[in-house]
């Protein structure tokens, strides 16, 4: 399921050096749990995003290991420290090997 996957990230464009900012991310994905059955009684195979990471200038902010119990269109809200100007990099890893990326740059000011 690599179609219709669209990452969205809400991050501030500017921040003071050393400020803590809140980041919100959402990615559209079915997150098929592998528990559901179709109308013929066959189990629909699992297809989820199993890992989400956020980095700022190569340094880790958060690394989440996800299981089928995470809802459709996985949403995360967390906080990060911005020590200098740079770029947040968000990465989602799909079960099928696809990798979805999104980046947001932050200026100091």
């Amino acid at each position, binding site marked *: 399921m690599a179609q219709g996957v669209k990452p969205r990230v809400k991050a501030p464009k500017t921040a003071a050096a050393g400020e803590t900012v809140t980041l919100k991310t959402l990615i559209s994905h079915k997150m098929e749990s592998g528990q559901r059955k179709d109308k013929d009684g066959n189990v629909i195979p699992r297809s989820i995003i199993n890992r989400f990471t956020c980095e700022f200038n190569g340094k880790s902010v958060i690394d989440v290991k996800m299981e089928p119990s995470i809802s459709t269109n996985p949403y*995360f809200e967390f906080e*990060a420290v911005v020590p200098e100007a740079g770029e947040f990099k968000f990465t989602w890893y799909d079960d099928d090997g696809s990798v979805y990326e999104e980046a947001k740059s932050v200026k100091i000011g």
Partner: protein
Amino acid sequence: MKFSRRDTLALGAGAVALTVLPLQANAATAVDDLIATFTGGADVGEGGVTLTAPEIAENGNTVPVGIDAPGATEVLIVAAGNPNPNVATFKFGELAGSQSASTRIRLAGTQDVMAIAKMGDGSFKKASQTVKVTIGGCGG
């Protein structure tokens, strides 16, 4: 044989207890295993972790939960009543602004949701909350 209202209620309660008990026993061992794997068998203390979850969730497909564990390096979220009790593991990196995060999870039914945090000093803390679910979120 004639059933009084009281008899019928007692029968019903007995039947429910019979069907629910073995299920819970199975789930409990899976949860214990999961927690033991995460903690490496270490003792888990109370306090130091805050788990925010609604008391009643109308839709088990998206239940908002939040964790806040100052000083934690890793937080495991466990839904004891789900077919797969493991929900997510948060690892906080060096630029994490706070050891808190929120997300949305699926719950199969009314159950306890637990957050187990691995603290910076290697100890483990947990918090749990019961969430009542009106419509389960794991499909038929």
